């Protein structure tokens, strides 16, 4: 058989749907985007019994087919469009055994679309613990389906699920209840007008504002005439429909499920008593954050030193092995240091992604949302803004996408606008290298000055985000209805496989995404730094020798003078010195200036740029940090990286908007160029002013 079975995984959030996806596909998965929108599309291949293959799509989590966000629209658009190449032959509704009642709502809706549907009841290992018993044959009969009782944690039931998927043709496509009874007249008329269409599909098209562009346009227009009822009437009907569905579900579960509350144990209550406590809750949250930053420093130390040394010797090795010439220099002085500058931060970035994945997987993030909502509201944000602000420490792009579940447009817009202030992982390399250079190594109360500075920078980023939110809340005149619903899922021990896959996927896309830009920029920079116009560059040796003749300089010192003279008169040196006057008041020289300009592509390019510039100038085998530490400021005569210029630089990076990808995503999510342009100008101007004041004050 050549045709693959198309399988769609559908389910409520927090049901372990992604674990099921991981269990079915393993490493045979890829993450992309749905065309035209930035909703993450996860798909993979699964081998079924008897040599059949299944193409599996992990659809975004949703509570129902009544979509209220872009992510949920993806689900309903796919399920309504039979012509889509991904249209499922079979749907697998993943549900959580502890929340079966609520999970079945979505299930009954999918059944109404007459798609063959399997019910996968996940987390079945918790049944004994919760005192739950299920009458599977009865449930299969009432729900008109086949049920797979699975546990991704204990790796049980996955083969049975695969077996059911491969036999999908035997599944019934009869809906399990008749929801049209809520308003017989109305639905009868609808049925007569469109005899060939599914009634429930028509109903979804009438009640939803989703983009049905891919469905048949003509039909939608004809259906528009059926929007005879007022919005309030439609809403009342939707409420009736929901009640009707729950009646059916309650009746079914009354017989099919028994819960012995006496044998049920609840860890949730005991944990929540502490974790959402008015005092302890906040204290614990703070301690968790502190631990994360200390860990990023301490744990990543060893692999980082290893990588640093490895790249330094790789550069030297390349020079020794390859024949001398411009090409070898390009590799050894341009590409290797440029890439090494970013590879070195993989351990720390991976740790950051690891901690965020654990916070989300364990269910703790919802508690933070709960604790912070009231405080965040004072600043015009929502408790849900905490998630983008925390995941913004990894990258602003997924963080801005994570704002989609904020119900109020004003709260969402403000969150989008201030999220780039949080310290993303691209700032991390810049911070780390500058902290290393200018902050002493001592310890205070057992915590190092360096990790404390880093934590302070994160707090500054977070604080600026919150304060500018407050200002925006006062300035922006947008009226939008606010409401706030957040599920408080059960606490779960994070699954190693899920966490590992998330960390791997995110780190990979960070490294390759940034890697491409850095590779390109370091090649360009190398050329600009290695060649120059006129006599000043080409006759550098003669000029320098004439200037320093008779001063008794050693050969090595003389060579260094020549090298820096050359660099200063290379193309890049000329450009750099042209922009130097604008950045001089901030305490930077032209090299830092070039690094800042190139890092408007992406912040982490800063480190790669400096690495390339310094290694062209100085051919000794040395780490980038040491080279930077030795450099002097020609204006003051002292060291280039001092406490004043270092802190000025740190703050510049804390506030400036230097990321083209973020600007692009803001444009997409707000549907206007107005907001990203405002972000770019205001944030960068603010950064310049702050850096200026700080340097002038500290120098």
């Amino acid at each position, binding site marked *: 058989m050549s045709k693959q079975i198309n399988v769609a995984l559908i389910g409520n959030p927090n049901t372990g749907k992604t674990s099921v996806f991981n269990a079915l596909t393993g490493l045979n998965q890829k993450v992309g985007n749905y065309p035209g929108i930035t909703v993450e599309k996860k798909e993979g291949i699964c081998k079924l019994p008897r040599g059949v293959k299944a193409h599996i799509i992990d659809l975004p989590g949703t509570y129902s087919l009544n979509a209220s966000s872009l992510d949920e629209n993806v689900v309903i658009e796919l399920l309504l469009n039979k012509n889509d190449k991904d249209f499922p032959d079979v749907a697998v509704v993943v549900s959580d055994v502890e929340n079966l009642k*609520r999970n079945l709502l979505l299930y009954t809706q999918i059944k109404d679309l007459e798609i063959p549907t399997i019910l996968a009841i996940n987390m079945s290992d918790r049944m004994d613990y919760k005192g739950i018993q299920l009458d599977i044959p009865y449930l299969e009969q009432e729900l008109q389906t086949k049920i797979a009782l699975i546990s991704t944690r204990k790796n049980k039931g996955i083969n049975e699920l695969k077996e059911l998927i491969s036999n999908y043709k035997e599944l019934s496509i009869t809906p399990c209840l008749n929801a049209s009874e809520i308003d017989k007249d109305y639905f009868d008329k609808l049925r007569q007008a469109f005899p060939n269409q599914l009634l429930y599909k028509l109903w979804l098209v009438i009640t939803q504002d989703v983009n049905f562009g891919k469905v048949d346009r003509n039909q939608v227009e004809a259906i528009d005439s059926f929007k005879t009822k007022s919005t309030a009437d439609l809403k009342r009907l939707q409420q009736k429909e929901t*009640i009707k569905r729950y009646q059916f579900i309650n009746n079914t579960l009354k017989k099919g499920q028994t819960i012995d509350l006496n044998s049920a144990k609840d860890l*949730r*209550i005991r944990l929540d008593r502490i974790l959402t406590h008015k005092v302890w809750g906040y204290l614990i949250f703070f301690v968790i954050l502190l631990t994360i930053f200390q860990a990023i420093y301490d744990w990543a130390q060893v692999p980082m030193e290893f990588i640093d040394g490895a790249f330094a010797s790789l550069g030297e090795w390349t020079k020794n092995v390859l024949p001398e010439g411009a090409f070898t220099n390009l590799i050894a002085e341009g590409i290797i240091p440029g890439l090494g500058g970013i590879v070195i931060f993989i351990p720390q970035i991976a740790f950051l992604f690891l901690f965020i994945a654990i916070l989300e997987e364990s269910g703790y993030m919802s508690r933070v949302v*709960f604790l912070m*909502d009231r405080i965040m509201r004072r600043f015009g944000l929502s408790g849900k803004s905490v998630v983008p602000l925390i995941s913004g420490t990894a990258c602003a792009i997924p963080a801005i996408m994570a704002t989609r579940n904020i119900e109020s447009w004003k709260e969402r817009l403000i969150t989008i606008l201030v999220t780039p202030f949080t310290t993303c992982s691209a700032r991390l390399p810049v911070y780390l290298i500058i902290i290393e250079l200018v902050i002493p190594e001592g310890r205070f109360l057992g915590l190092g000055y360096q990790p404390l500075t880093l934590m302070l920078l994160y707090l500054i980023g977070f604080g600026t985000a919150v304060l500018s939110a407050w200002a925006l809340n006062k300035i922006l005149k947008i009226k939008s209805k606010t409401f*706030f*619903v*957040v599920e408080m899922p059960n606490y779960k021990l994070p699954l190693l496989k899920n966490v590992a896959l998330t960390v791997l996927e995110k780190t990979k896309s960070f490294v390759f995404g940034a890697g491409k830009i850095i590779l390109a920029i370091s090649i360009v920079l190398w050329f600009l730094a290695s060649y120059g116009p006129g006599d000043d560059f080409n006759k550098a040796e003669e000029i320098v020798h004439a200037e320093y003749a008779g001063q008794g300089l050693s050969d090595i010192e003389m060579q260094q003078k020549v090298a820096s003279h050359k660099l200063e008169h290379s193309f890049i040196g000329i450009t750099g010195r042209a922009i130097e006057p604008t950045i001089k008041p901030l305490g930077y020289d032209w090299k830092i200036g070039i690094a800042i300009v190139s890092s408007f592509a992406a912040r982490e390019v800063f480190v790669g740029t400096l690495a390339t510039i310094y290694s062209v100038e100085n051919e000794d085998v040395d780490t980038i940090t040491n080279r930077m530490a030795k450099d002097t400021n020609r204006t003051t005569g002292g060291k280039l990286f001092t406490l004043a210029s270092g802190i000025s630089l740190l703050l510049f990076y804390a506030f400036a908007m230097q990321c083209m990808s973020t600007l692009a995503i803001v444009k997409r999510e707000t549907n206007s160029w107005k907001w990203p342009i405002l972000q770019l100008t205001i944030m960068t101007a603010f950064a310049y002013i702050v850096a200026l004041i700080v340097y002038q004050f500290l120098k």
Partner: protein
Amino acid sequence: MQVTLADIKRGQQGIIADVSSIHIPLKLLEMGCLPGNMVELVQVAPFADPMYLNINGTHLAIRKETAIHILIDISNE
């Protein structure tokens, strides 16, 4: 006795009597906030807002401004 959901104390339980469908988002109804279902106030954040509820076995948090649109029956003890 009938009160709004915003009036109950931590640990108190009741049965949902009525929800104002104009003020309550469909999503909340779909999560089980419907007449006839049991509701318990599990935990409150500082200033009693938001409220952490157990509705019909689903645990969720809503703001006080939403809770005032949900009427519940509580037994007089």
